[in-house]
């Protein structure tokens, strides 16, 4: 039996290191990493046990380690020491599809700060969407019921912003978009 403590410590390190690189990883990837480091013998560790006991106790006993559910119910692991919950959420939404990514980011911003989000910002990292993807999403969002809350507002210099009507009213969203795009720069 491998040294449990050693495996355990390495799981923690692998998750933290990957988070420091700005990435999430699955249980599968952790396992591969452990094998790659030669920490697990080829007889291996029973997969079910690994997931259910090792990973779970690692998470329980290290408060910085988190689990987040991605598409198809796959679990992803990260450490809030190096990767924020906000960033992990964005990465998971990114794994799903651009539509979900845009909608959730817009909803969160509209609720939390509150503020609308410029369409252009979705080109930048970590979103990295293309023009086509964004245009397609806009079209779909206008039609599908589950995205009915996502609305558009355009500033005086023509920048498109999105916001969620569940959290921001249209006038407020417009004023905030104008403030972000034009106002703050004109009031240095």
């Amino acid at each position, binding site marked *: 039996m491998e040294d449990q403590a050693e495996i355990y410590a390495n799981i923690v390190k692998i998750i933290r290191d990957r988070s420091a690189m700005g990435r999430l990883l699955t249980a599968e990837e952790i396992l591969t990493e452990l094998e790659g480091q030669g920490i697990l013998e080829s007889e291996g560790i029973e997969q079910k046990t690994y997931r259910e006991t090792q990973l779970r106790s690692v998470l329980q006993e290290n408060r910085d380690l988190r689990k987040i559910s991605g598409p198809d119910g796959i679990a992803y692991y990260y450490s809030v020491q190096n990767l*924020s919950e*906000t*960033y992990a959420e964005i990465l998971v939404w990114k794994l799903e599809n651009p539509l979900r990514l845009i909608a959730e980011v817009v909803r969160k911003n509209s609720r*939390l700060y509150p503020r609308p989000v410029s369409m252009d910002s979705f080109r930048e990292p970590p979103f990295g969407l293309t023009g086509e993807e964004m245009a397609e999403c806009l079209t779909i969002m206008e039609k599908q019921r589950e995205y009915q809350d996502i609305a558009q507002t355009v500033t005086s210099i023509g920048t498109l912003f999105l916001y969620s009507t569940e959290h921001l009213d249209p*006038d407020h*969203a417009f*004023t*905030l978009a104008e*403030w972000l795009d034009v106002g703050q720069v004109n009031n*240095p």
Partner: protein
Amino acid sequence: MAKYGGWAGKVLRVDLSAGKISTEDTVEQYKDYLGGTGIGYKVIWDEVQAGTKPFDPENRIVYGVGPLAGTGVPCNGRTAITTLWPTCWPRPLVASGHMGGHFAAELKYAGYDAIIIEGKADHPVWLSVLDGKAEIKDARGLWGQGIRRTTIEINQQMGPEASVAAIGQAGENLVPMSVVINSYSHSAGGVGGVMGSKNLKAIGVRGTGSVRIAGSKEEWEKVIKLHLSLLGANNQHVVPNNPQPWAEYYDAGSRWVASAGRRWGAANPSIDTGACEPHNLNRIAYRTNNAAFFLGDKAWQYTIRGNGCTACPVRCHTMLKVPAVSAKYGIPAVGQNTCTGLLFGKSFFKSFPDGPKGQTAIEACMVGMHLADDLGVWENYGQLQRDFQALYYNGIFGRKVAEKEFKSYSWDKYEQGDPTFLFELLPKIANKEGELATALGLGTGHLLERWGIPEQEWLENHELLYWKLGHPKHHSNEDAGQCGVIINTQYNRDAQCHSHSNFTRNGLPIDVQKRLATELWGAPDAVDAVAAFTPMNTYKAKMAKWALLRKELHDCLSLCNWMGPWVASPLKERGYRGDDSIESLVYSLATGDKKSRQELDEVAERIFLLHRALTIRDMGTKDMRTRHDTIPDWVFADLKDKAAFSKGTIRMDKEDIKLAMDMYYEEMSWDKQTGSPTGETYRRLGLAYVADELTKRGLLP
């Protein structure tokens, strides 16, 4: 050994009329006023009669720094310059300008806390301050030269390390819209003409001395590191401007613009700014790039690096290299400045052929900086440019200026957004050539009067951002509702106060801001989400008082009010809390004069009160509420006629603002009806002599 650390110990007094130089003991005479504007207001109160005009020899100009200048406290590179203000209209009143750079530190190392200039030399002179020895020197060879040549020639005499504060042709010609500049790009607005009126071309300072720290070096190191750990980016924005792996929050409006892929493109070789995780104090200088913030992503490729004041890790000035401007305009390819200084040239133009964030806009900035920072022209927080656009496009120039002169300008170039237009306009303003340039150089108030334009037109206009007394607003209701309005009523030029807007723009979610606000000002209701303002309450008044007193405190200690106070931080483990006592911590340790946060705020209140008293005395009225603390009409209107306190408007309500002023006066323990401090308040804050004088003049409520 001096009793206190921090202060250099001497104030330099220069009488240019008599050609006499003397010194005063800082601690003996001015300790209760700390430094900076504190010394400035005290000198003006004691020595300058009501009714004196800015360009009279009897006016004083006081270059004041604080006990923290020249130390390693972050953000201490500020010099406050206090004088009677040339652009204050209809009558001049006391005000201060502020310049960063290296002048403040060098003055301390030379052995001085302040320089008081009075009188007028009978020929152009410059003041040399070299390690405690001050001399008045002949500046006839420098007169007529720009700030750049003046500086270099003085450096040739004093050595390359001397710090030189100089005026350009604008100041020489007594153009009210003029500046003094040190360290290439660091200007103090509004004071150039006062120096010019005294025939004072420049002050060169060189010091090889030290500033004593009273506290132990171990304690000092701890406190400095604490302060550093709380820093955000420029304007104390504490979240990055796009999602970063380490960040829980982000804000597209934040000046924390560093990110992987954003490079100082003109560094040799280029440098990636990367993810500036807040605990990494060796990356603070990469967080801010104001050129990129204001001019768009195109500015990254032109960025050499950040620049700024002594001891400040933030580097809010951006040094740009734009090779194209050399051939195109015959100006140096390298330029640098921040904020409105950076935008000086661009702000004149309504539009550019390639848009507001294109190449031409950047070139206009380069041309603007090159001209304005050499001629020494001031822009009054962009009011010069806003007025220019309105006066042109509304046909006022065409009507007020003689046809021949009007036609001599290349208006086609102006309308097309051609930066070469600036070569026609700016030198004319500096040299008072022609009616158009002369009027613009007077400042808004005097310009309106000269051209018979009712101030009311400016007071109603939403785009001009004019507030009162010839000056614009500076972070008012658009930033912080009633709190911002109160702040903007209090000074005799644009408020120059950022305590409140640094907080409201820090990028944290409104709930986090409200949590911090509860601790700082008593309740979450002290702050609202922008454009979702709610009716007035006492907590907003407390916040306004805090904001004003801290700004005054910073201007006396030598701390940068564009960064402080440091009440929010980027640190999640602190709940994004900063430290409201950091000023009193560093002050106490540097000087050895132990003061709690409240005690130091009381000193600030004394100094702020002196400013109030000076204003009352020189206006000859105690009715500040109706005569001074005025608010322009545009604040109470909305272009879509949305009601105040509805979502999406920054419109304020008249009755609510009356209540706001009531609550503010109450917080200050001033008379509610007149907005004038009471005798009791003056006495409580150690200004009995002020109360006595005002009593004599019938100016106590």
